[in-house]
Every structure is written in structure tokens, then in C-alpha cells.
């Protein structure tokens, strides 16, 4: 536990009088890819946002690379983590190039565009991209913010939702490469095949953690039935 880059104990979040997260404990070490799975509304997004320090009212213990992200200044946070929201937003119709200029490292952003197969969309406006391409372009901001990845946390909320099979595979490889470079990765996903390829899996059910361990230990038929109502994985 002490080697963990990201660690939480008794992490709870109350949203509008409802427990959105209830006493969750987790740890993610550098080099590890941990998947968070669960049905819609189980608390995956809340868990990732809490771990990123985006929910200051979250209670419990939380440590990210030696700081409590809830209390950390934004500058401290940005050098310790990279976060991709489930639904990336853009208030204005930026071009992909402009999106890169906003990212902390435009050159790295350009490289990530090429790696995710978006190099030819550099001059395109975000509104002209498909939903999947737009999501991938925003993921490039996250990967660019991760920098050399060493000693940083990478928090991804359903990063492959809306992406085609090819691009999903490219993202999965990029995630694994980031972990190999020394990042601690926590990702939420509905893709159980990807979850089975991760190092460990956290299963959330109605805001509570019901299983933690290797994919073989956690994604058993019994847990899958209890979590997704008997739909086969």
C-alpha cells in the first residue's frame, strides 16, 4: 500500500443527499492499470472525479503522489495527474490545432494525434469531427498533459466510449505504454474484455466496492450476474 501513487481509504461522496460513493478503499501503484467497472450509476465517474480532487466535499483519506488532491493547488495537481472526463466539453468551436495549443504541450499533443490516427484532422474544427474523433482529440490533450508519465496518475473516465474498434485498441495500447513508463492508471470502462486485460479490477455496485483483485478474481460469473443482472460478459 505504501508504494501506491494513488491511495484512498473510506472515500465517500454525498451528492444531493444521496450517497454517490460509500466507503471506497483503493490503491494504484506506478506501472499498474486498474479498471473500475460497474453498471450505469454505480459511482464510477464519482470515484474518478473524487480521486482527481474534483469533489472537495468527498470525505475519507485520499493521497495522490504525496498530496491530498482535494486541498492541492491546481498547479500542484496538474503536475501529478492527467484526467479525461467521460464527456469532454468545448464551449467554443476550436480547431484541433487550437485544442493542442491549449494543452500543456502542443508538440506532444501533435504526436498523440498521429498515434491515435488523427494527424490528418489537425486543421479541422471540432464540430466537423465525428463524436469518436472528437473524443479522441480530447484524449490527446490528456495524454499530452501526462508528459513523461513517470510518477503521475492517469485517470480516464470511459476513454473508449464512442471510439471505433481500431481507435479503442490504440487507446488501450497508449494506456499500457503510459503505465510502463511509470504512470498509475485508473480507468472506468464498460468494456469487460479490456477490464480483463488490466492488472486489477474494482467492481462498484450501488456506490460500494463489492470486489477488488485480479480480473480472474473479480470478474467471476457470480459478480457479473450480480452487477449487470445476468447479462453474460
Amino acid at each position, binding site marked *: 500500500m505504501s508504494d501506491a501513487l494513488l491511495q484512498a481509504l473510506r472515500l465517500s461522496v454525498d451528492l444531493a443527499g444521496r450517497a454517490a460513493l460509500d466507503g471506497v478503499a483503493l490503491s494504484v501503484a506506478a506501472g499498474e492499470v486498474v479498471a473500475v467497472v460497474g453498471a450505469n450509476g454505480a459511482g464510477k465517474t464519482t470515484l474518478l472525479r473524487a480521486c482527481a480532487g*474534483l469533489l472537495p466535499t468527498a470525505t475519507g483519506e485520499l493521497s495522490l503522489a504525496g498530496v491530498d488532491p482535494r486541498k492541492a493547488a491546481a498547479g500542484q495537481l496538474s503536475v501529478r495527474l492527467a*484526467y479525461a472526463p467521460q464527456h*469532454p466539453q468545448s464551449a467554443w468551436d476550436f480547431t484541433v490545432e487550437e485544442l493542442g495549443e491549449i494543452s500543456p504541450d502542443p508538440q506532444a499533443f501533435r504526436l498523440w494525434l498521429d498515434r491515435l490516427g488523427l494527424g490528418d484532422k489537425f486543421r479541422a474544427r471540432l464540430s466537423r469531427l465525428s463524436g469518436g474523433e472528437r473524443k479522441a482529440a480530447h484524449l490527446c490533450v490528456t495524454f499530452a498533459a501526462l508528459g513523461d508519465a513517470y510518477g503521475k496518475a492517469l485517470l480516464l473516465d470511459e476513454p473508449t466510449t464512442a471510439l471505433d474498434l481500431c481507435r479503442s485498441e490504440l487507446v488501450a495500447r497508449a494506456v499500457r505504454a503510459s503505465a510502463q513508463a511509470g504512470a498509475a492508471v485508473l480507468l472506468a470502462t464498460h468494456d469487460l474484455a479490456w477490464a480483463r486485460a488490466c492488472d486489477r479490477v474494482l467492481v462498484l455496485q450501488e456506490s460500494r466496492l463489492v470486489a477488488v483483485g485480479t480480473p480472474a478474481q473479480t470478474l467471476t460469473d457470480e459478480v457479473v450476474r450480480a452487477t449487470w443482472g445476468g447479462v453474460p460478459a
Partner: protein
Amino acid sequence: MDRRAGTFGLAACLLALLALGALACGSAGFGWGANGELLMLRLPRVLAALAAGCALGLGGANQQGVFRNPLADPGLTGVFGGALLGIALLLAGGADFAWNHRWTLPAAAFGGALATSGVLMLAAGRRSSAQLLLAGLGLNAFTAAGTLVVAARFPEARDVLVNGAAGDWLGSATLELAWAPILGCLSASVLLLTQAGALDRLALGEDTARCLGTEVDAARRHGVLLTALAAAAATCLVGQVAFIGLLAPHLARALVGPRHGAMLPLAGLLGGGLLLLADTLGRSLWTQAPLSAAAMTALLGAPAFVWIASRRHE
């Protein structure tokens, strides 16, 4: 980048030509007078229109960025109305004191603008475009009614307040009266330009902005404070005027793209140009009964507002 530089160069040239035209045109006809007396008469008004328009354009761009909302405009969301109500309440409380201590007028305008900005932020700061606009329209109506109540109950302040509500104070601009608010507009404009990076990151959502190193609440607070400062200074020069803060950022975005590093300064230039154009047209086209700058901007701006509102959300 070249295209952006060209756009800025062209905008600056057009603004300079417009300023020369505004100095030469007016209800007294074309020309600067035999000894330049018309020039000296019009100069404060032109400077005031440029400074106020610049602050209005930048204030609107900043409010749109802070609220991540293309329909935000301090003139439509009650911030200018709050500034005018602040002045009205000061005049109601002690008109003699206010006229003898001129600094109290921009201070009261700033207080009023800040109060309405705060209410707007609490009521609809993180809600949809429509909710923000509705809350702003409500605030606008409330502040306008408040100003009219004060004007009705305090006859000595009636004329000045009615002119202010009609956006007709530019005509009374003199260098002696206008220099402080002009400085206020320019200061607010420079400070607003420093918000560009934070506004770019805010555009990607508050969660992403924080993870990219932006203190979101502080950025929003600064944005609201500076917009209130710009609104207060501009209100002291023009009175209440809408649409500049809406149109200038939209035009700037169309010309140089939405990144705030280029968009904000161009919105300032365009805001100055639009207000100066409206004021010059208003006093030159109808020399017997000049139209106020606010009336002209409303005539030009309202159709544009309808056009913007009918477009798909950017």
C-alpha cells in the same frame, strides 16, 4: 498567424479611419472648425466611446468565457443595469455629496455591477445558456425598474438618470469629466486581457481546466470582478448600452477563431469601433434630433442578436 496579424492590422486601420471620421463628423456638420474648436469638442466624446466600447467588448467576451455561454453580455444580463442602479442609489442618498466627490460615482457603479454579477453567478453561473439569459433578463428588468423608481422619487436626479438609462451620456463627455472613467476602462481592458489562458482552459470544462492547472473558482471570481470594473467604468461614460458586449466577441471569434489570446484584443478593438460607429451615425444622420449610442447599437445589434440566438450552439 499571418491571417490573424492581417486581421488585427486591418481592424486597427479601420478604427483609426473611423476615429478620424468621428472627429470630423457631427451635428455641426463636416470639418474640424476654423481653429479646430469642433475637433476639441468632439475629441473627449470619441476617446470616451473608444475606451467604453473596448471595455464593453472585452467585458462581454470575458463574461461569455467565464459562463461558457455565447449569449452572455453584461448589457443584457443586468450588469450595466446594476452599475446604473448603483449610481442612482448614490444620487438618491446624497446627490450633492456625489457631485462634489466625483470618485463616488464610479465606485457606486462598481458596487452595483458587482452586486448584480454576484447574484447572476449564484443564480445561474453554472446553468444553461437559457437559464443564464433568463436570470440576466430578470436582473436587467429589476435594475432598470429600480433606476426608474429613483428617477421618479428624486426629481433632481431624473434627467441624468433617464439619459443614463437611454445610454446618452457620451454627449456630455468632457476631458475633465471623462478622464478617470477612460482610465478605468483601459485598466479593466488590460487586466481582462490577462485572463486569456484561463478562459481557454475553462472552455474545456471546469474539471479539465483544474486538472490543467487553472484555479477555476479564482478565475471565475477574477472574471466577474473585472467585468464589473469594465461595466462600471463604461457605464460612467455612456450610460446603459447593450449588444456591444455580445456582438464584438462573436465578430472577433468569426475573424480570428475562439482562442482568447487573439479573440480578446480583437473584441476590444471591435467593441471600440462599434460604439464609436453607433455614436457617430447617431449624431450625424439625424442632426436635428441625434440618436443616442445605445439606441443605435440596439438598432444594429438586436437583429444580430436574433441571428446569433437562432444559430446552432457553437
